[in-house]
């Protein structure tokens, strides 16, 4: 063994020999630099194996097998509704994060701090009115898209074996989407929000057996207060985003693994 590098391991000389464009050279240099430190190539190899394992073993899709693409286009526009739900969710998440910089969930003062911060956003903040509008509308559009997506799945019979689990997951998702909407609706703490909250408390109290616990847990008491607003806020900006994002990822992951159910 000599201390000198073997010819085939001298990547620099190899690159020189190859007469690369600047882009290729930069790419290779970066790749080699990273690979020396992080063994990227190993991981790429793993990913590649995974890719082939997954992709090469997928059955021919129904349209491929029976040449039914002329039937497929007919349904196709409805098949983007799931994507629309996801996009609306992303738009809502971005605009919501920006709104969060200016909103404070406090019921102190008259009108309350929460109400004032919404007024501030709408009146004084540059583009604040637009921002709130975008957040509102993307939420509305998301609920509508999710509902229509569910109808699409129902009327194309796509919930049947092996997709029952994704249907159940979908039910959880549409419910959580509505809870998202509801908790957000309460945040401005105006009259509509307050009395919608009141109904929420009364509904929780009417749950058989566990009613009082539910009301305590979700609304922080039997009457609306600072605790209610704060809980709605944490649900809306902390808990639900994590849970719903994860569930959407699983939902779409399952679709990826199982493939889209095509009409036939």
């Amino acid at each position, binding site marked *: 063994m000599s201390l000198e590098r073997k010819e085939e391991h001298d990547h620099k000389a190899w690159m020189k020999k190859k007469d690369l464009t600047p882009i290729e050279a930069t790419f290779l240099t970066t790749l080699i630099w990273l690979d020396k430190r992080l063994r990227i190539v190993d991981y790429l190899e793993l990913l590649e194996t995974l890719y082939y394992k997954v992709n090469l073993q997928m059955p*021919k899709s129904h349209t491929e097998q029976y040449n039914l693409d002329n039937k497929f286009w007919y349904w196709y526009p409805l098949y983007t509704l799931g*994507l*629309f739900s996801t996009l609306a969710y992303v738009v809502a998440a971005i605009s919501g994060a920006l709104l969060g910089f200016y909103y404070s969930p406090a019921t102190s003062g008259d009108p309350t701090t929460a109400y004032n911060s919404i007024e501030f956003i709408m009146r004084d903040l540059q583009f604040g009115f637009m921002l709130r509008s975008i957040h509102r509308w993307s939420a509305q559009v998301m609920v509508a898209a999710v509902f229509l997506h569910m109808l699409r799945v129902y009327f194309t019979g796509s919930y049947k074996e092996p997709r029952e689990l994704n249907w*159940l997951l979908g039910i959880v998702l549409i419910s959580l989407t509505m809870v998202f909407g509801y908790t957000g609706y309460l945040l401005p703490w*105006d*009259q509509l929000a307050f009395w*919608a909250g009141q109904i929420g408390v009364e509904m929780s109290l*009417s749950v058989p057996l566990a009613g009082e616990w539910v009301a305590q847990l979700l609304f922080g008491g039997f009457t609306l207060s600072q605790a209610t607003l704060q809980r709605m806020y944490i649900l809306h900006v902390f808990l639900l985003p994590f849970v719903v994002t994860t569930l959407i990822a699983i939902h779409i992951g399952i679709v990826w693994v199982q493939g889209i159910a095509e009409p036939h």
Partner: protein
Amino acid sequence: MSDNESETKEIRTDGTGIVAPDNETPTWSERKARKTGLSRLTYEYFERARREDQDLRTESDYVERDVLAFPTWPHETVRNLSIASFFVGMILFLSATMPPHIGAPANPSQTPAIILPDWYLYWSFGLLKLNPLNPELAILGGQKIMADRTYGVLANGVVVGFIAIVPFLNKGSARRPVEQPFWAAVGVAGVVFAMTISLLAVKNLMPMNVDLLFDLTFLLPIVFGTVTYAVLKTMREGYMYNLNRRYYRLRPPK
């Protein structure tokens, strides 16, 4: 089993065999042979599943995807990007043309005439207004078994629960509404009911008799469902004929 046992009984003292070197990684059948009970069953299943995969792969209807499929770049990507920008543009357009407003600040001592959630929760709100359907039981001397509001809250659970078990009620490979007029009818009735129950939720805003509205809430879904059923049933014959002809030409029944 017996020769396996004698193999595993041998204790190696040279330090090998603690971690299997790469080329000695035991195969599934070797691992299986060492197991008993549930884990043995698991390995047996793995083996079977593997064999099934292999068989399927060699069958003609398995295909090397990356050779035949629609290319992701640029076709799929460009199309998805244009759909996505169109859609986000639509949200921005709506936001710009119809911005939301904010009502008066919360005032616990003054109940407003109209209390409403966002539109997508009207259905749930409407289910709270089913008081006339809450049975007054003769056994209890004409009393209701539960408060109207509890009844409404439970109705929410019933609706969501029914939707949840649909895949377990309706099985089989039929996908098109024409193939299963009944389930299409159930779906249409459900959609219409979602709308009518939402209208019931805003009954004090509806320019019509409340009792009539209440009756229509339940009648309209039935009417629409029945019509759907009749139409699809009529369509089915011709439709299925074409479908079957197309199918069986391509895949003759075994």
